[in-house]
């Protein structure tokens, strides 16, 4: 467990020292959302209808943007060798890196999302469901993202390849996240969608580390 928490601590400290990384991701998220009112025109009706979709899509793209730093740095500087030789299985190391990634990317996105909801005129009654949905869905985004980040190591254009792998995999959280917001404003209620989001994250928790660790072993070769 020493190794597991040591790795999380190390990644958090690195992120704190290089604050620009978190800033870039948040900056992208904010700008991407703010572009929409300009693009679709200042009609509150239209904007309000697509508000949840805008925020979810922008959050997904911001998360994709941050994934390249998950393993690429360690792969390039040899740190990945030491992680592979550590006292914990590689699967656990992936989980530690995924947790650190969520704390430095997913959580900040969740925190700023209520402010962005104002820009796109989201119905205030739906705000708690939007935030809760992001809170439940972003761990799955970090974990599934770890698979794509590991698979694209060593590719000539890792960023492009990773985006192509990851965006289809992000469809389920996107669908249930936006559907939850929609449902919260109707008689249906958001409960079922939120539970499905939680299920996605819980399923990714044990499965994604195995897939990502297998890809990392290939990259070490």
């Amino acid at each position, binding site marked *: 467990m020493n190794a597991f928490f*040591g790795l999380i601590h190390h990644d958090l400290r690195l992120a704190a020292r290089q604050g620009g990384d978190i800033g870039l991701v948040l900056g992208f998220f904010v700008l991407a959302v703010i572009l929409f009112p300009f693009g679709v025109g200042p009609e509150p009706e239209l904007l309000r209808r697509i508000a949840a979709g805008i925020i979810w899509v922008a959050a997904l793209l911001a998360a994709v943007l941050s994934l390249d730093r998950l393993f690429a740095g360690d792969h390039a500087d040899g740190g990945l060798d030491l992680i592979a030789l550590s006292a914990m299985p590689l699967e656990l190391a992936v989980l530690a890196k995924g947790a650190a990634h969520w704390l430095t990317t997913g959580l900040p996105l969740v925190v700023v999302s209520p402010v962005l909801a104002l820009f796109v005129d989201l119905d205030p009654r739906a705000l708690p469901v939007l935030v809760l949905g992001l809170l439940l869905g972003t761990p799955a985004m970090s974990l599934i993202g770890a698979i794509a980040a590991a698979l694209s190591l060593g590719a000539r254009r890792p960023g492009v390849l990773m985006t192509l792998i990851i965006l289809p995999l992000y469809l389920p959280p996107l669908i249930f996240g936006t559907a939850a917001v929609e449902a919260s404003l109707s008689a249906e209620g958001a409960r079922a969608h939120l539970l499905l989001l939680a299920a996605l994250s819980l399923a990714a928790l044990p499965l994604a580390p195995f897939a990502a660790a297998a890809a990392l072993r290939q990259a070490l070769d």
Partner: protein
Amino acid sequence: MRPFPEATELVGENLACRRGERLVFERLDCRLPAGGALVLTGPNGSGKSSLLRLLATLLVPASGRLLWDGAPITQDPARYRGVLHYVGHLDGVKPALTPREMLGFWAALRGVRRPAIDAALAAFGLDRVADWPCRWLSAGQRRRLALARLAAAPAPVWLLDEPGAALDDDGEARLEAAIATHCAAGGSVAVATHQPIAITDATTLALDAFATPTGDPLTV
């Protein structure tokens, strides 16, 4: 230095290594007894780094097997990883962190609770720069930091890939002293190097003897 209780023999039997489409070497036997030293020599591309990565379990041999303490390492890879230190030609040093923080992190990865960080920094002459960000360090100082891993958390098997690269005379002397103390305590070391390195009673393994001509069709 206390002798290593778990020190024993590392044996490679009939090893073959494949990188992509190329067979780098085959039919290679090697033996690294407790307290012994193995110097790997050979021209560029003869597979020195590959053999070290293979011994470190970072590469899977195309054929053959590795034995630690008489048992194949595949039986208990976690235990085997715990007894080895691998220093590759990449240092794994993060520019934003300090040498002290890097050594603390590397020791934590090995599950070591009380690493001898100050002693390790002193052993490789890094005490003065211990709290600088690593981006201020020169290539030689980064190399010293990577080697300081060896002293911060003891392990009986050292696998060193060109450890003398970028080191000055003082650095090389410190490295040789560290290796001598390590072997005297019953530890073993395998070094791939082009530079002459002073290790008493070292066995030399010339890798070109096992090399296959480039582009050889795979037979493994």
